[in-house]
């Protein structure tokens, strides 16, 4: 047998014997840890925001802004156009 024939021999096959299962257990645990870290990070940011930002003032300002937007003629026209477009688009698609 030549050296090349020897080298071209495939590697010895290794039986799974639960290896893939163990890898996937670790993969899932790693994904859970990553998700937990993201959720914990977001929660910490929200708590900090509540503690540091003047939430009462923001709430009042937000209410005022919503009332102003709702009573604006331009916004009402835009909303009307969007609704009309959606309704017409459905009607045409049925034809």
């Amino acid at each position, binding site marked *: *047998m030549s*050296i*090349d024939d*020897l*080298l*071209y*021999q*495939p*590697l*010895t*096959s*290794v*039986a*799974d014997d639960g*290896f*893939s299962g*163990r*890898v*996937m257990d*670790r*993969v*899932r645990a*790693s*994904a859970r840890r990553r998700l937990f870290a993201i959720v914990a990070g977001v929660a910490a940011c929200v708590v900090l925001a509540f503690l540091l930002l003047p939430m009462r003032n923001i709430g009042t300002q937000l209410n005022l802004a919503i009332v102003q937007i709702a009573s604006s003629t331009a916004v009402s026209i835009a909303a009307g156009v969007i609704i009309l477009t959606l309704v017409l688009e459905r009607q045409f698609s049925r034809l």
Partner: protein
Amino acid sequence: MLAHEAAAGDSAAFGVLVRRHQSKLRGFLLRMTRGNHALADDLAQETFLEAFRKIAQFGEGSFFGWLCAIAYSRYLMEARKRKLESLDETDEVAADAPEPETASLVRLDLEKAMARLAPAQRAALTLCFALGFSHEEAAAALNLPLGTLKSHVNRGREKLATMLDAWRIKAVS
């Protein structure tokens, strides 16, 4: 395709990739660690975990080639950390090489001779011959320039031939 599904968060797709490639990857690492099953399996597990974490970085090409690149870099880190062997040349033979009862004598000779090569030569020969990589693919997997890879293949092959010939002559006499 499966790699892209896994990158989109489908862990079942990644499970299929693990089952599909585990045997070849463990075989490659088994040769790199000179027959150390426990270390080869540890490295293979770490390789798959790293692949899962970095799967979004996998673009086009062979997923197994990408796995081998991660595995080889992990192997080098572990070899440096544990001082497993000189990364240049070595004269040691694996302590737990396959038993003659379970492996053919010819394969045993090959594994013994492989164990005496430098890791880069062992990896280059294994990828280019046993695993069927092109020189370009093997160079990418081992993060080597193409010329260096070819030189490792040629030198490793020559050394293997010399060693095996010497053993054959010794066995006959």
